[in-house]
């Protein structure tokens, strides 16, 4: 299969189940909402060492937020409810509560509740105010610029982490151009994040390592500098650089759509200016139960 001359390998991306929540962060203006959201989603590229994977889903207009101010929708993914709870408390407590003029709300309607303001309210030292509007409880915590308003809980849902595809190109310039085009298109898809820097990861990994302490190590089959050294290199002679786009989604359908849109956008550059081939990271079924078959998605 080829799209605009770009070869689509007959393979699949392998993903695994995660737990996720959506937060809505609002502030005095979009700049301050983004400061809070960027801090919250910082150092959240991979559960391997960050505890969670997080990213900005999209910008929200004032009419889309609970308090009518500009906002940002953020998704957080973790391997368990317990870890997600810990990450929420640390990240919202240190990055949103601290951000001037910010407020934080749960962004999902269904799922089990996880504590949000319920835990952070104690910062108010007894001066916090509980408010219940409808079925939702909020906490008003006094801070130096007024109040930090935070919903009592946020909902957790089953999600999918580790959806991916690989962009194979002749050199760094071409692979970066294709990746940027893919990410720009994928950021319009609701319910997904691409948690790595700029949405792209260069250090794609495989499960396990020759060193017993490491759970993951470099995906040697896709490292161009190991071509000719390792026996099972997946790269042909013309490939000089490979980048991976990792996708976490609230559903497998959302990852399907992001994969489709991202690959098609990358391929619009053609083989001359963009990728030579598209592949995906799979581990023979050992990593997770969700398989995203590239050719099927792109039909």
């Amino acid at each position, binding site marked *: 299969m080829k799209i605009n001359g770009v070869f689509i390998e007959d393979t699949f991306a392998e993903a695994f189940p995660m737990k996720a929540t959506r937060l809505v962060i*609002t502030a*005095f203006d979009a700049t301050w909402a983004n400061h809070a959201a960027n801090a919250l989603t910082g150092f959240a590229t991979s559960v391997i060492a960050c505890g969670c994977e997080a990213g900005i889903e999209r910008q929200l207009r004032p009419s889309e937020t*609970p*308090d*009518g*101010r500009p906002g940002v929708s953020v998704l957080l993914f973790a391997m368990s409810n317990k870890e997600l709870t810990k990450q929420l408390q640390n990240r919202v407590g240190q990055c949103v509560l601290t951000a001037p*003029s910010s*407020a934080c709300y749960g962004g999902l309607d269904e799922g089990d509740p996880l504590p949000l303001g319920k835990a952070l309210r104690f910062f108010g030292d007894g001066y916090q*105010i*509980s*408010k*219940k*509007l*409808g079925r939702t409880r*909020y906490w*008003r915590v006094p801070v130096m610029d*007024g*109040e930090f*308003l935070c919903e009592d809980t946020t909902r957790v849902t089953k999600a999918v982490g580790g959806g991916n595809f690989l962009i194979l190109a002749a050199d760094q310039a071409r692979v970066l151009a294709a990746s940027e085009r893919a990410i720009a298109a994928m950021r319009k898809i609701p319910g997904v994040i691409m948690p790595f820097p700029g949405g792209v990861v260069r250090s794609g990994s495989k499960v396990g390592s020759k060193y017993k302490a490491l759970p993951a190590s470099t995906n040697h089959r896709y490292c161009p500098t190991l071509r000719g050294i390792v026996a099972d290199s997946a790269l042909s002679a013309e490939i000089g650089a490979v980048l991976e786009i990792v996708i976490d989604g609230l559903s497998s359908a959302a990852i399907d759509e992001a994969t489709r849109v991202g690959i098609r956008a990358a391929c619009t550059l053609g083989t001359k200016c963009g990728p030579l081939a598209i592949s995906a990271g799979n581990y023979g079924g050992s990593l997770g139960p969700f398989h995203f078959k590239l050719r099927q998605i792109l039909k």
Partner: protein
Amino acid sequence: MSTLGLHLAAAPDFDLDMRGVTPDALKSRKLNDIRRLRLKQGRRDIALGELFEIDGAPGADILEITGACPRLHHLGAGMTVGELRVTGDCGAWLGAEMRGGRLLVRGNAGDGVGAGMRNGLIDVSGSIGDFAGAAVPGAVSGMKGGTILVGRHAGRRVGDRMRRGLVVVAGDAGAGCGSQMIAGSIVVLGTTGPDLGAGMRRGTIALFGAPSDLGVNFLPNGRYELAFTQLLLRHVASLKPAWRARLSRVASVERWVGDAGASGLGEILFIS
């Protein structure tokens, strides 16, 4: 959804206690049982069928009472689910100790609307009497949850001793609005009378316009742009879209705290 209708043919000579005439209580009864239901009328009781014409099917989720008059007390009291629609004026204790469901009144209501209620929605298109959302006789605190929406004016001591929940008055509220509030929220779109928030311990009273008639026990706390105010008013607007235009004019809030004679943690927000 199906509807069961009760039409009051003529106003009764004595006050009538309507406790037990709720959508949830009547849902499992047959029509003959509903006709035979005994209603307290002073020291006597009387069959519902002697006063009301009944139409519709039993098992309905919606109960509609038409031709209501101020002699009908405790309408919707203690209801838990379903919808009760009332056309006409109601007596006292409308929706008292309500646990859930929706109680919609096209008309006015007497004293004690939503007293001691814990959940659900009461929406009165007209005016109501005193002590809305307050405590039922013998209780320590007033409403503990739910929402009361008043289309026109409310009498004295709205939300007296209320602990949780929301009362919104689109018109004016009488003297002692929010008196002895323990917590919860009251929003008044019109004016309020004297003794506003007297003895309130916690809770929020949100008003439109400049501060006036506050007792010495309330202290100015500053002017803020509180996200909570927007949240509160947007919540009210979601319950009553017709009020949206009146609720959207928020620039900032002048906050007063008190009653210093109680715990002093209550707040009165003047929205302008």
